[in-house]
């Protein structure tokens, strides 16, 4: 391959360099600039700074503006994320509308009309739909709550016919907390109260403190005459601190009437078949009529049993009372009535400090993301510059 002679090339370049006029003051100017500051970037553009230095200054400005823009974007993202965050769930709306330790329930309008009593048993602070049940009391943290459950009644609004008595099936549960050694006396008192009103305790169960550490408790199921249920409930609530009250009233008048009509019809059919039986002559006819009579008798007994059960349930209301001994550490620490200004200021200062730390932690994530993004862009830029330099050199 033909190539240029090295010496000739060397001489040509030397000759070309010989034509270049080198400024004699160049090195002195550079040393003056260098002695003025070790950082060349500090040379002002106005005193003869090179275009390259001006470009560097402009590049720094661009970089600073880019960083500021990135930080602005990150800040906007943080503010947007904070703004979109839903407020913390609060039990305020629930507890604010309900007075603490007040049992509230609503009974069906038909029941109220029949008994002449107001719809609510105890100073109602809110109403729940007719035919539903209301549960009210204290939650695990001791906050009073009311939860109206949407359990529709199965009783259609059947009008009373012929002055038939209204049948209401009512049940309820009551949770009480009593002090130290009052578990057994309260249970005994509940039983005696039910007996005094014409009712009776159908089930009693007590559990004394065991190795598990749970406090002593007891459960008593009381059957109270339906007309005295309200009175008994109000008396029972006074025996301790109410934790939970739940009542449920269901109109069973229609079901009662249906059962009665069914029994009447079955009895009529039974009479008819008995009349036919007297006139039967062949063994086949007798067996056939007997089979029908057995079937009717079975249905009749089933309906009568249901009627008796419904009669019992509507005659006596069932109340399940759970009594538990309060733990000793539940006594609340009395708070100062009104803190002084200094105390309030200290509290505000601590709260502000905590809020600041929380804010810092909250923005740490987006900030870290932004920093990583900038580092990535910087690394890509460096890589691109090196690649470009390698490509052209």
């Amino acid at each position, binding site marked *: *391959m*033909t*190539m*240029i*002679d*090295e010496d*000739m*090339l*060397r*001489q*040509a*370049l*030397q*000759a*070309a*360099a*010989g*034509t*270049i*006029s*080198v*400024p004699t003051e*160049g*090195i002195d*100017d*550079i*040393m003056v*600039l*260098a002695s003025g500051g*070790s*950082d*060349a970037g500090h*040379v002002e553009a106005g005193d003869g700074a*090179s*275009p*390259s*230095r001006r*470009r560097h200054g402009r590049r720094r400005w661009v970089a600073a503006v880019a960083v500021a823009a990135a930080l602005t974007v990150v800040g906007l993202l943080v503010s947007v994320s904070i703004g979109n965050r839903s407020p913390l769930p609060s039990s305020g709306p629930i507890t604010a509308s309900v007075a603490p330790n007040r049992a509230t329930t609503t009974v069906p309008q038909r029941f109220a009309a029949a008994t002449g009593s107001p719809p609510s048993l105890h100073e109602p602070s809110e109403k729940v739909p007719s035919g539903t049940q209301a549960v009210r009391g204290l939650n695990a943290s001791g906050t009073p709550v009311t939860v109206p459950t949407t359990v529709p009644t199965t009783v259609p609004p059947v009008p009373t016919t012929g002055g038939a008595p209204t049948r209401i099936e009512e049940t309820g549960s009551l949770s009480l907390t009593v002090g130290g050694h009052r578990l057994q006396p309260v249970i005994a008192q509940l039983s005696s109260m039910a007996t005094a009103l014409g009712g009776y305790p159908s089930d009693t169960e007590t559990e004394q403190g065991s190795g598990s550490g749970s406090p002593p408790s007891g459960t008593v199921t009381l059957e109270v005459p339906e007309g005295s249920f309200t009175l008994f409930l109000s008396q029972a609530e006074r025996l301790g601190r109410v934790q939970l009250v739940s009542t449920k009233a269901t109109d069973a008048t229609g079901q009662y009437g249906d059962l009665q009509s069914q029994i009447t019809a079955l009895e009529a059919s039974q009479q008819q078949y008995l009349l036919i039986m007297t006139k039967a002559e062949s063994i086949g006819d007798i067996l056939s009529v007997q089979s029908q009579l057995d079937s009717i008798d079975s249905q009749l007994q089933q309906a009568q049993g249901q009627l008796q059960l419904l009669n019992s349930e509507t005659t006596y209301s069932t109340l399940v009372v759970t009594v538990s001994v309060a733990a000793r550490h539940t006594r609340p620490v009395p708070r100062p009535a009104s803190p002084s200004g200094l105390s309030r200021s200290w509290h505000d200062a601590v709260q502000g400090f905590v809020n600041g730390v929380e804010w810092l932690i909250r923005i740490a994530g987006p900030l870290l993301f932004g920093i990583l993004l900038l580092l990535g862009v910087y690394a890509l830029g460096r890589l691109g510059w090196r690649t*470009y*330099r*390698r490509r*052209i*050199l």
Partner: protein
Amino acid sequence: MGDDGLVAWLDEEYQRSFCTAALVLAGQSDPEMIVRESYLRAWRFRASLGQGPAMRPWLYRIVVSACVAGLRTSPSGSMPPIGPPFGEVTSTATGEGSGGRRRHDGWRSLAGATAALPLSLRAPLVLHYFTGLSEREVAIAIGRRPATVRSRLHEGRSRLAAPDDVGVVDGAGRPAAAMVSPQPAIHEVAR
């Protein structure tokens, strides 16, 4: 080496650095600005300066980097040539006869052809044949391997021997080398 010794050494190298930058830039940027930038940069980072023979490739690495940056940001041909046109060497300057004139015409043409080479070939040629750096030092200066430098030098010399391949033409469509020197002058100096 102390600061005084470094200043003296930089002073010694200034003319060579300036010419190196001018040859590498080939009139496409201001070598004075590039050398000033390079020297200031070298002074700022003098703590990382090598000792002894490592100093020259270190300095010319800075110069070449500044040249690359200058070429990247300057539009091609925006700067006027510094001093006489690149490669313009007259026989009257050397005081030789017609043989010397022919030889200097060949140098002129050769220097012009070198200026027309791409930077990837021009920089190693200038650093090796003008600045006097070894292939290893050129490799340090341009950030490539010595084998690559060797290959670039070989290719550069080959393309200078065939000026039509340089690729730079004047306004009349003639090769740049032919613009400044008759064609036989180049082949005369070819091996």
